C-alpha cells in the first residue's frame, strides 16, 4: 500500500495538451509486464525518447528544472482511453503524487486513487493559469479540498469521500469488501434464481 497523504507541496510539470490518453502515458508495448514495479521509465516514453531510444532534447519531463516535481498539471480529459492501471503505476513510479486538470477520465481517476496518485479536478480558469506557469510551487490540501499557489491562486476540489478516506488514512478498499462477505453471501442466496447458479 501507499503512504497516507494529507498535504503535498511541490513544483509542477505541465503537459498542456488535451485528451492525453493512456497510450501516451504508457505505450501498449510496455504492458507485457506481469509486475507493477519499475514502470516509471516508460512513463510518456514516446514523448521522452526519440526513435532510436535516445532521450529527447525537448522532453517536458526530464530537465533538471523539473527534478523532484511531484505534481502533473495536464490538459482536459487527461487519462482517457484504456483501463490500464499501468498508467498510474508508471506515473507514481516516475515520481508523481497528484494530477491536476479541469477534467480527468473516469477509469483513470478510479485507478489513480487506488495507487496513491491524487486526481485533482479544478475549475477551468485556475487550471488555465496553472498551465501557463510550469514549475510553479503548488500546495494541495487533500483534507480541506483546496489547491493553492502563491497569494493569487486558490481552487477547490472534491474527491469521492471513501477514496479520500483511503488516501488520508491509508485504508484499504479490498479490506472493506472482504469485511462484507456475509452480506455478499446473503445476496448470492437471495438472488440465486436471477443471477443463475
Amino acid at each position, binding site marked *: 500500500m501507499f503512504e497516507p497523504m494529507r498535504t503535498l507541496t511541490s513544483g509542477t510539470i505541465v503537459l*498542456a*495538451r*488535451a*485528451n492525453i*490518453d493512456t*497510450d*501516451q502515458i504508457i*505505450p*501498449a*508495448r510496455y*504492458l*507485457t*509486464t*506481469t*509486475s*507493477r514495479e519499475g514502470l516509471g521509465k516508460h512513463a510518456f516514453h*514516446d514523448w521522452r525518447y526519440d*526513435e532510436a531510444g535516445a532521450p529527447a532534447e525537448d522532453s517536458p519531463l526530464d530537465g533538471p528544472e523539473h527534478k523532484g516535481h511531484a505534481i502533473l498539471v495536464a*490538459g*482536459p*480529459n487527461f487519462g*482517457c*482511453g*484504456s*483501463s*490500464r*492501471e499501468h498508467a498510474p503505476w508508471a506515473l507514481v513510479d516516475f515520481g508523481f503524487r497528484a494530477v491536476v486538470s479541469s*477534467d480527468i*477520465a*473516469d*477509469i483513470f481517476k*478510479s*485507478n489513480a486513487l*487506488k*495507487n496513491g496518485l491524487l486526481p485533482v479536478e479544478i475549475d477551468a480558469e485556475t487550471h488555465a493559469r496553472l498551465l501557463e506557469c510550469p514549475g510553479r510551487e503548488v500546495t494541495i490540501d487533500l483534507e480541506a479540498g483546496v489547491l493553492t499557489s502563491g497569494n493569487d491562486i486558490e481552487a477547490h476540489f472534491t474527491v*469521492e*469521500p*471513501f477514496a479520500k*478516506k483511503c488516501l488520508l488514512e491509508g485504508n484499504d*478498499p*479490498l479490506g*472493506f*469488501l*472482504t469485511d*462484507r*462477505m456475509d*452480506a*455478499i453471501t446473503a*445476496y*448470492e442466496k437471495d*438472488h440465486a434464481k*436471477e*443471477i*443463475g*447458479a
Partner: protein
Amino acid sequence: MMAKSLFDKLWERHVVVPETGDSPAVLYIDLHLIHEVTSPQAFSVLEERGLAVRRPDRTKATLDHSTPTLKAGADGRLPYATAQAEKQVERLIANTKAHGIELFGIGDPRRGIVHVIGPELGLTQPGKTIVCGDSHTSTHGAFGALAFGIGTTEVGHVLATQCLLQRKPRSMRVTVEGELPPGSGAKDMALAIIAEIGADGGQGYALEFAGSAVRALSMEGRMTLCNMAIEAGARVGMVAPDETTFDWLKGRDRVPADWDAAVSDWRTLPSDEGARFDKEVVLNGSAVAPMITYGVSPDAAAPVTGNAPRAETAEARHAADYMKFAEGRPFTEQAVDRVFIGSCTNSRLSDLREAAAVMRGRTVASGVTALVVPGSEAVRRDAEAEGLHIIFLNAGAEWREPGCSMCIGMNGDIGQPGELVVSTSNRNFIGRQGKGVRTVLAGPATAAASAIAGHIADPRDYLDAAREPEHV
C-alpha cells in the same frame, strides 16, 4: 411507482450494500472476464493476501491481447512478439489452472477477443453485470447488460469478493431516429455520436442508446455502437434488450437452461415510459454518412466525403501536424499504406461480410498492406465456411488468426512510423498502432474501399449496386 430506466433497473438488482455519503455501493458482479494483460498483478495481490477466487465459476478467461495472429512455425511454436508477451500468456494459463477458472486458451475453438466471445458463447446476457479489465467492456451493454471496464486493482476486488465498490453514475440517453442511409453502418453512427458529444461528453454517465435507428441495428451493430461508448468517455453503453437480442442469443452454449423464464424476465428490463435521464441527446440517423477520423482523438470524425477542417485550436493544430492532413483538402486524397479490419469493434461475421462485399473480385492497391483479423475462432470458422477468406486472399489481403492484433499492437502487428492506417478499431491515439503511425478510424466497408483505392475512399462507390445493376 417511479418510472425507471434500464440502467436504474440493472443497478438496483445488483446492489449488495447501498451507497451512503461515506461509502460507495457494493455492487455484485455476475460475470468477470479476464485476459492476460490486466490480470497478472491482480492474482499477485490475491496471493500476497492469501485470498481465494470467490467465484471461479463466474470468471472466464481468454487470451487475445498479446497473442500472435500468425500460425505456429514448423517447430510448433507460436511467433510471440517478445519473450515477455509469451510469459504473460503462460502466467494466465498458470493462474487460471491454480484457481480453477475456465480458460479459452490457445487451440481452443472458443478462443477470441474477450468482447467477441462473451456474447458468442451466450455468457453475455441481458440483466447481467459484466466487468473486465478492459475499457471496451461496454460492448456487452448491447444486450441490455450493465458492463464496464475496470482497472487491475478492481480485477483483484472482483476475483476476491465478486463485488466492486461503485458510485452510481449519471444517465444519458442518446436517441437516434430515422433510417441509416445505404453505405452507413453502426460504426458510422458511433463516430457521428462521438463527434457530436465529444471524447469526454459521456464522462461520468452511463449511456443508453435508443431510437428507431438503434432498434434497427443487428446485434453486431449494437455491439459496435456500445463498444465505442468509452470513446465518448462513458464507461457504460447500453441498448435495451428486445426480440433481436433474444433471437441472437437463443440456442447459444451458455444461455439459461430455463430460456422462457429468462426471456420473460428480460422483457421487464427496458426503460419505462417516462424514465428520467440526467441528459438527453438526439441525432438524426438518416443524416449519418460513412465517417472517418482525421485527428488523434475519436471525436475528430467527419463524413468521408469532407475536407480536412481548419485547425482552430492548439490541439487541432498538433493533430493536423501529426496526421499531415492539409487544411481544406479532401480526405479522399490521403494515400493509405495499411488497412486493418478487425478488433472488438468490427471483427464479427457481419463486419467481415461488409468488407468482403467491397473486396470481392477486386484487388488491394499496390503498396497497400491489408490485414483481416477475425475476432474469434468461431468468426474465423463461419467466415471460412462462407468463403470470405478466399475473397480477402484473392484480393491480396492477409487472413490471420484471431486476436486484438493491430488494434493495440501488443503482439507485434503494428505499422511503421509515418504510415497511414485505415483501421476498423476504436482508437486513433498517437502511437497506438505503432510509433509514428497515423490512424484513421472507419467502418469495415470504408476500410475495405480504402484498401482497394489506395487512398481514403467512400464505400458507396464500391457497393455492389454501383457495379452490377440488379437483374430485374
